[in-house]
């Protein structure tokens, strides 16, 4: 193939769009010194991971309204283990696995039911997780454990990841360690999402989402794939929660809040539900708006505005921003004569 054909074939490939972003992402902490700004970027990475996990579940037609439950389970499980002496890697992985197991359990209950049952069950589950954590002596003892805290917060020394993982230079400030930790975790999530959606599994997910009955008739094992979606999605959510806990300096039942369940939903829908880039765009946009409104002092108003955004989106822009972005990119590449076909993304 000649160079021209190669350029034509790959010039509008989504991967090429990611490369400049990845490069920027890698050098950003070295360039920026404003801690607050870095924190916002790290939060965005976190939300991209978390929203992608929700998106994956939604891709299979299952909408969780209580994803914060898995976030929190991952966070609490890993925190308890690490406080009581486990290594961070074990802690985080076990946290994610615990979230995944609970997710599997809920998934099994809801797999044969209509989709809104899942929404109800997950919503309720997140709410009662607060009660469970508050009341279970198990939690109280485990969290109070080695560090002797009173009450329901647990806290991990944020330095643990850099030190024991050994992959970061000791010169790297913990702030930057977390940046790269989340950056790579996010990239891994996006890559995983991409691989899953483009694979046979992803095809099964989409078939189930579009029309379960027809998918079953085509020979797709509905139960198996729905549960796979659950396991993967809740694992990633638990993983994100486990990483987030030490970064945030503490963890408490706030992790299970309705707000934490709401965020991945509005982010994914804004970006474009069911697309790979959707959660990314959505997390970026919504988090930016959210933080900016926080800076303007609108603590109640910004909740209200998020609600308005979601309602307007459902009514007028249910596919999110992705289709618009695709249109723009297609336009540009056509104008530039690079390609005559439309990019799938």
């Amino acid at each position, binding site marked *: 193939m000649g160079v021209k054909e190669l350029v034509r074939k790959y010039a509008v490939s989504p991967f090429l769009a990611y490369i400049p972003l990845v490069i920027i992402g890698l050098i950003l902490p070295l360039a920026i010194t404003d801690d607050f700004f870095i924190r916002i970027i790290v939060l965005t990475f976190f939300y991209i991971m978390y929203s992608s996990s929700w998106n994956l579940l*939604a891709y299979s*037609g299952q*909408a969780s*309204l209580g994803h914060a439950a898995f976030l929190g389970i991952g966070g609490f499980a890993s925190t308890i283990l690490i406080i009581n002496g486990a290594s961070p890697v074990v802690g985080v992985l076990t946290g994610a696995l615990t979230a995944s197991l609970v997710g599997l359990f809920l998934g099994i*209950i*809801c797999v*044969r*039911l*209509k*989709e*809104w*049952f899942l*929404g*109800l*069950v997950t*919503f*309720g*589950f997140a*709410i*009662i997780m607060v*009660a*469970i954590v*508050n*009341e279970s002596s198990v939690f109280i003892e485990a969290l109070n454990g080695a560090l002797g805290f009173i009450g329901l917060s647990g806290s991990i020394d944020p330095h643990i990841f850099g030190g024991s993982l050994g992959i970061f230079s000791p010169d790297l400030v913990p702030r930057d360690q977390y940046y790269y930790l989340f950056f790579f975790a996010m990239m891994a999530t996006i890559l995983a999402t991409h691989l899953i959606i483009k694979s046979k599994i992803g095809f099964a997910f989409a078939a189930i989402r579009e029309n379960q009955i027809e998918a079953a008739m085509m020979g797709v094992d509905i139960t198996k794939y729905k549960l796979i979606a659950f396991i993967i999605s809740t694992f990633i959510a638990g993983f994100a929660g486990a990483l987030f806990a030490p970064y945030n300096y503490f963890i408490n039942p706030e992790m299970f809040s*309705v707000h934490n369940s*709401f965020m991945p*939903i*509005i982010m994914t*829908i804004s970006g474009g539900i069911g697309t790979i880039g959707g959660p990314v765009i959505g997390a970026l946009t919504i988090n930016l708006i959210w933080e900016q409104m926080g800076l303007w002092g609108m603590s*109640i*108003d910004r*909740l*209200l505005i*998020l*609600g*308005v*955004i*979601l*309602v307007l*989106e*459902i*009514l007028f822009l*249910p596919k999110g921003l992705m289709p618009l972005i695709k249109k723009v990119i297609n336009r540009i590449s056509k104008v530039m004569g690079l390609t005559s076909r439309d990019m799938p993304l």
Partner: protein
Amino acid sequence: MAEITTLIQIFIWGLTAGCIYVLMAVGLNMIFGVMKVVNFAHGEIMMLGAFTSFWVYNYTGINPYFIMFISMIVVGIFGVIIERYGFRKVLGTGKLNEIFLSLGLIYIIQNLSVKLWTDDIRKINSPFSSMTLDLGMLNITYDRLIAIGFTALILISLYLFLTKTDVGRALRATSQNHEAAMLMGVNVNHMYMLSFGIGSALAAAAGTIAAILTPFNPYMGTISGIMAFTVIIIGGLGSIPGAIIAGLMLGLVQNFTIFYFGGAWKDAVAFVLLIIVLIIKPTGLFGEEH
């Protein structure tokens, strides 16, 4: 084992809590039955009913039990608006969109209420709040008896409406066979608005009673909405008798749980019941197989 009078006391509390659930659940069944729409924001509508009654009572001092009917009308109209400009638009685009829409509505209604009225805790003190029925060692507040009475009154009126009037019959027909109802000349769009209006009005009644019996704030709706759905699933989707029995049962179970195990487990026990029903018989006590 506690004293018998304490148990009867808890039974009455359970019954009144159950009445609130019943009103919520019957309203939800009406909406779900006719439109097949999932509105998770039903709890917020209840909250609006509570606040409407509260403010009207604050400014006029009229007996809150009469204000309840005003609240039902006002909130009923609000329900119609949400249906007409919200849910009707997403009808047919998939359940997920309905769920997301109701989530957005929860955020809007709840936070708008906090913004307008602050999250202070309030209560409607009815003129009967200090009056109790004295049965020897047993004291039952009048408010609770009135709550049970009004619930019964509303349910009976609803029953008569649905069975004896043309419009009521058209509503039932629409919920049983949508297309056939259209062929009878029923304007189903009107039925949608009506079902949302009635469902919301019932929620407003539930909210008013709750506001009279317990302190409340703008966040009261979140749990109530979920409880309402839990009740209709346990009772069986679309079944009004199921909603009544399940609602009363849940109120009783919850109150006995609070007494024996403490308040924190109130919601957990409802959730456990829900899971049990979903595992054993997802169509609920009186549900129909599809």
